[in-house]
């Protein structure tokens, strides 16, 4: 694809790798925040090509992985209702709730549909005025504008049979929570490029200063990631801790003002429980009071659903960078993409699934 293939050129990648090797004199632990970056790093074998001392810690930025178990159980309860058409992005269908997943609900007769955009769900609602249509609105700041636009349109067009099950999560509070953890080993962050394309970089200088960590806004193609790592290592080696933008073709410092205005109108900040991590204050968005009538949790009265995680699953420690996926006793045994104990094993962006998919060779070789 033009403007995309250029960013996985092997020769240019070799040059960036050489610069990273030349710049590195000590071990450093870098966290890539976004699951899309984790997928790309493992998919292209980038971590195998870095200097031995450079460790990539896979952050909590997979929206599928961190969506709370209670939220999944609420989704399952709503999707099982005979009056509901439940619409979701595809990779949420296999995420295990307490007892089953959305595929299981579909198999039992639930009307569960994969859509590629929340606006498709709105179209389905207009086509089925006698049914309740619910969209599973999860994700970071990246997916939020489209979800906000959908609710905004539903209200503007008076589509009363549409609602949103919202579990949005926010990156900056998660970075702060990781740095506040007493066991934190992270020395620098590759910030999630597409989150910043929406929100800009304004939230990061305070974090970089407070925790004395470089934060480099980074894209997703191999060259983007290598350039992000290169800039981060150069800062670390020089003892600097600044916010830098290594993804200028997509990210402006001020973000996308139109999207941000819509987000402020439709959503309000709330405490959010991250699967495997726990509750992080002020780390989520829910529908604001102006749009409360479109909140599926209230419409279907599932606010009381409570759930608890499998005690075997170490996803929380993986998501905090305290443990590599293959250091979990259940990895590849009780827990596989086919039988996931935790959500990090489900999505292609989940660290455990990425390791399982692409790294079993190393694991076989070293076991």
């Amino acid at each position, binding site marked *: 694809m033009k403007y995309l293939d250029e960013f996985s050129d092997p020769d240019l990648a*070799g040059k960036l790798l050489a610069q990273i090797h030349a710049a590195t004199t000590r071990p450093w632990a870098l966290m890539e925040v976004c699951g899309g970056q984790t997928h790309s790093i493992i998919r292209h*074998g980038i971590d195998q090509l870095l200097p031995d001392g450079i460790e990539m810690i896979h952050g909590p930025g997979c929206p599928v992985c961190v969506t709370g178990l209670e939220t999944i159980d609420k989704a399952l309860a709503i999707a099982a209702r005979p009056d509901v058409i439940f619409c979701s992005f595809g990779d949420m269908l296999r995420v295990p709730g307490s007892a089953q997943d959305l595929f299981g609900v579909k*198999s039992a007769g639930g009307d569960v549909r994969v859509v590629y955009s929340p606006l498709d769900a709105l179209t389905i609602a207009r086509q089925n005025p006698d049914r309740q249509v619910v969209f599973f609105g999860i994700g970071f700041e990246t997916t939020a504008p489209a979800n906000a636009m959908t609710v905004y349109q539903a209200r503007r067009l008076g589509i009363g049979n549409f609602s949103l099950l919202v579990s949005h999560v926010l990156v900056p509070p998660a970075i702060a929570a990781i740095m506040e953890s007493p066991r934190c080993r992270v020395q620098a962050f590759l910030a999630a490029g597409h989150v910043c394309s929406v929100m800009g970089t304004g939230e990061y200088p305070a974090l970089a200063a407070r925790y004395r960590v470089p934060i480099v806004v980074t894209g997703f193609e191999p060259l983007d990631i290598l350039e992000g790592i290169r800039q981060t290592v150069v800062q670390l080696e020089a003892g600097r801790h600044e916010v830098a933008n290594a993804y200028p073709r997509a990210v402006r410092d001020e973000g996308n003002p139109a999207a941000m205005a819509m987000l402020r109108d439709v959503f309000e900040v709330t405490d959010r429980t991250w699967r495997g991590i726990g509750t992080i204050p002020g780390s989520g968005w829910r529908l604001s009071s102006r749009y409360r009538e479109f909140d599926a949790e209230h419409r279907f009265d599932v606010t009381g659903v409570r759930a608890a995680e499998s005690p075997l699953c170490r996803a929380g420690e993986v998501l905090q960078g305290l443990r590599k996926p293959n250091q979990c006793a259940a990895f590849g045994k009780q827990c596989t993409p086919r*039988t996931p104990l935790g959500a990090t094993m489900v999505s*292609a962006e989940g660290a455990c699934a990425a390791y399982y998919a*692409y790294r079993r060779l190393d694991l076989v070789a070293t076991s």
Partner: protein
Amino acid sequence: MTAGLDFENWTCPVPLRDHPAIVMGHGGGGAMSAELVEHLFLPGYGAAGAGELGDCAVVEAGGVRLAFSTDSFVVRPMFFPGGSIGDLAVNGTVNDLAMSGATPLYLSAAFILQEGTALADIGRIAAAMGAAASAAGVRLVTGDTKVVDRRSGDGVYVNTAGVGMLAPGVDIAPRRATAGDAVLVSGDLGVHGVAVLSCREGVEFGTGVSSDTAPLHGLVAAMLATGADVHVLRDPTRGGVAASLNEIARAAGVGVELGERDLPVPPAVADACSLLGLDPLQVANEGKLLAFVPPDSADAVLDAMRAHPLGAGARRIGTCVPDHPGMVVARTALGGTRVVTMPIGEQLPRIC
């Protein structure tokens, strides 16, 4: 095991009991489909079950070796760029027979039709089947028609079964994959899957890609005419190259190494997969084959393939190795490695 299945105490290491009922993934051609066969169908069949579980069985009847295969077609939409469910129903079974090295001869055709389906649509499908059979040189010799209630079906389902003749001495099967074999592919990958996805409801996107559906036995005949001892042939349909190579690696107890830079993925397929978060290696093909051939005959077979209209884009994509048996590994363009996994069930588009 045949006297009633005990669903509570299955010993399967990756138990099906997570899902007490059929879910879509059981039909995806990946690990879940394989589990269903291994842990439900085969125990149910008991002593009556036989064979190597390939897409095509080789059986003897009256001193003649026959290839025998069946396949059901539930593709949505029924008509897509480059073909229809009718083309697939003929070419799919013809190709399953061809992958054993057989010459396809006779096909059956059975229809399950939903009440209310337009006769014009069924007529188009029948005409496509006739044209495809004529092009492939096979005869449609028996059939069946059933109609189901409006609420029970979804348009048209087609099942075809076929028989073909095997020449003496031809032995082409996944178990014959041997370390050192060259792994060849007959042309561009992922074309059919992207063509169908491009017009599926809710996904529509513009692409110039048309399905590659085609009968491959002519190409196979050209390859065998070189005199090479072709070890394995496979048409990488559902589950794509990833599923086919994993199945072959497991069946033969060998490893497979691919070079990602050598994979013929056309830009339109790469772009669509990139947008939808799919792996081109897991996307279906309907007119391509994979071949495992001894290294000293690889060039001759490649030349023969390239001289055939359906193999013009043939190239070597990898090697069969003694390491990591049962696993397929790709060397990435940047120089790292990754494991190419068996798809689990349905391919799930990623959120972002």
